[in-house]
């Protein structure tokens, strides 16, 4: 196995890269992605990032976007594309797989290969690696902290302790929900120690993890790293207090009414069997079933082969606790599953390697390995279909409600809207200085991203009293009817579906529209 490990791992990485880094511009920016992109603009153009404790999560995402922006051929923010931003999370999605190498000495090469394969091909992992939100970074920093802490526990080396502390600090500075991962880690450590003692098994060799000195050092490093980010690298001292204040609004929000309150089985439905709106059946059941096998073996403690029993149990208990916490929380968005799905993927690696190892004679081993590889192949097909294919109606699955992970996703109609609005700017006397008014009682995102080139764009939650602008993008819910006013200065140039069931109307002054239509190719009968 030794000589196959490196090429095997590289092949998995190549697969993962192909699924994560290609055609990143295919899907329009989601509401949250656009918010993150516009937040980055202040950092990029004015070196002015201030952590907001009320919204938008932590500062790591904008700061880790800087390298992607530097590497972009143009450094003009308006020239950045969806791909510029998504390369950041795609990079972290790939790094999450590489991170598995930290565990290999205690996890086994075969287990590492299976786990890396499932991480590379898991449709949820692929889809959200291509999504410019905080979740993939949180999962990466969580894995970094946990794996480095494990290595410190085994070796007692300070370097691993420092890396674990840095990972913890970065978790904190990424997303408020890091507390659930930390709580699950603590509970997993306690459960592992308790379970091992209950079974009368010898104590494991991860004693350095319990050292008060190590914990204190890691916490100091974590706090230093996190507060550096929260304070915008010491330029915004209030960010330090805001890092703690944020839990007030978030706790308040968690108790309130939200469109994101879903039943307990929300995540399991998506992972095990999802079929909506006449679409195909999606399932990552293979990972869940293999994780269950891995969980059972970890608790039993036998048949684990090269896997360190304590490590397997830590992963098993961590995954179980985190799954339970997210299942019980009424507030659910599908990307939140990545944290416990990553745990499941590690356990699935243990389960898959175990199933092959236990099979006898050798031909049965081969049959099992081929069957599992075929299952992994099915995962890759699902991932490819979710991100690159279109349904029978020509709608890309990456935007479609048929996709379990496309949640409140912006529809491709935004591209049609922007083609028209950009075309209008080409003929308008003021060009991109033309005034655009956006009116919507609810969220109008991601329009600010797509209108970023326009210098005079205003946003209202109702119809303003001022005279109509040359271009107006108005929520249909407002029933604006600018075209039905007696002065007949504007016409309604079309409906555009921003998100499923959320329609906007484009109003254009008749003069501007008359100029615009002259630039259009003649219509065919």
């Amino acid at each position, binding site marked *: 196995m030794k000589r196959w490990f490196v090429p095997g791992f590289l092949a998995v990485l190549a697969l993962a890269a192909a699924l994560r880094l290609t055609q990143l511009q295919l899907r329009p920016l989601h509401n949250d992605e656009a918010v993150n992109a516009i937040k980055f603009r202040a950092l990029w153009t004015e070196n002015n990032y201030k952590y907001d404790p009320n919204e938008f999560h932590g500062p790591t995402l904008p700061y880790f976007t800087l390298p992607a922006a530097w590497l972009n051929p143009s450094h003009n923010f308006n020239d950045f594309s969806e791909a510029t931003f998504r390369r950041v999370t795609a990079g972290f999605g790939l790094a999450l797989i590489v991170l598995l190498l930290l565990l290999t000495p205690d996890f086994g090469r075969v287990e590492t290969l299976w786990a890396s394969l499932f991480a590379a091909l898991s449709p949820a992992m692929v889809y959200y690696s291509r999504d410019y939100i905080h979740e993939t970074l949180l999962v990466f920093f969580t894995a970094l902290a946990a794996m480095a802490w494990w290595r410190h526990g085994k070796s007692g080396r300070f370097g691993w302790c420092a890396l674990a502390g840095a990972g913890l600090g970065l978790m904190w500075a990424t997303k408020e929900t890091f507390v659930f991962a930390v709580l699950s880690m603590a509970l997993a450590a306690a459960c592992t120690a308790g379970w091992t003692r209950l079974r009368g098994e010898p104590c494991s060799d991860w004693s350095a993890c319990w050292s008060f000195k190590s914990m204190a050092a890691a916490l100091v490093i974590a706090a230093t790293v996190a507060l550096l980010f929260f304070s915008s690298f010491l330029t915004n001292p209030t960010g330090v207090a805001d890092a703690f204040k944020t839990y007030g609004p978030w706790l308040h929000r968690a108790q309130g009414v939200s469109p994101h309150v879903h039943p307990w089985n929300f995540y399991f439905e998506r992972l095990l069997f999802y079929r909506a709106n006449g679409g195909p059946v999606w399932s990552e059941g293979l990972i869940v079933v293999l994780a269950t096998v891995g969980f059972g073996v970890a608790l039993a403690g036998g048949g684990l082969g090269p896997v360190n029993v304590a490590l397997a149990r830590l992963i098993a208990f961590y995954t179980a606790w985190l799954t339970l916490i997210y299942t019980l929380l009424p507030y659910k968005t599908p990307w939140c599953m990545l944290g416990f799905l990553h745990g499941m993927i590690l356990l699935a690696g243990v389960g898959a390697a175990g199933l092959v190892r236990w099979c006898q004679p050798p031909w049965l081993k081969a049959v099992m390995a081929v069957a599992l590889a075929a299952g992994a192949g099915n995962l890759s097909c699902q991932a490819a279909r979710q991100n690159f294919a279109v349904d029978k109606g020509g709608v890309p699955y990456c935007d479609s409600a048929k996709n379990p992970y496309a949640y409140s996703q912006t529809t491709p109609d935004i591209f049609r809207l922007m083609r028209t609005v950009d075309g209008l700017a080409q003929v308008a006397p003021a060009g991109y200085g033309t005034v655009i008014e956006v009116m919507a009682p609810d969220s109008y995102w991601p329009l600010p991203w797509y209108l970023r080139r326009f210098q005079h764009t205003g946003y209202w939650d109702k119809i303003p009293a001022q005279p109509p602008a040359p271009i107006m993008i108005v929520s249909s819910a407002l029933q604006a009817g600018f075209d039905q006013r007696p002065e007949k200065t504007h*016409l309604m140039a*079309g409906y555009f579906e921003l998100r499923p069931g959320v329609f906007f109307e484009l109003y254009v002054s008749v003069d501007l529209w008359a100029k615009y239509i002259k630039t259009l190719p003649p*219509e065919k009968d």
Partner: protein
Amino acid sequence: MADDAAPKAGADLAPLPLILPEPAMRGTPPNLPTNTTAEPLSAKLPPAFFAPKGVTNVALGKPVSASDTNLISGELRQITDGKKGAFEENVVTLRRGLQWVQIDLQGEFNLYAIVLWHDFSAPVVYRDVIVQVSDDPAFKNGVRTLFNNDLKNSAGLGVGTDREYFDNPLTGAGKLIDAKGIRARYIRCYSRGSSANALNNYIEVEAYGLPAS
């Protein structure tokens, strides 16, 4: 000005004596077209339209001509025969592309409302619907546009600022165009296919007015 004859507040007005055909469909229709500026389809009837007392359908039984002399189905006279049911035998079909039908009212009238029924057996949006009136049968002089939803000026008759609309099978109400008492003899209705296909279908055109004094 023809608009002088438009009904004003306080004038002796009454609801238009419009008799609607039976709706062609009940319930929620499937697969509505989305690439349109039409208001969402509604099963609610539009409010009554008021016109001067005594107006009648002055287009009933009047001669009809068309840009297409080789009809795919039906006969042009059916467009003013008063039969408005959404049945296949009532549908007059003109070929693809921009086509028009023209009604000669055989005299000048003050028109208050023109009502159009394309084929409304399904929720369909007809494209580039333009309604003009004139005293010139060739529509070269004195042409006035009452309705135009040709947003891209594909017909070359000016940019339309009116919205598209569904030929509504849930109500059978047709498209009522406020003619504001305009004085004219000829009515011309354009269309360029529909969201369903490239053909142009008509069931009925009515014009409510009074003889011009």
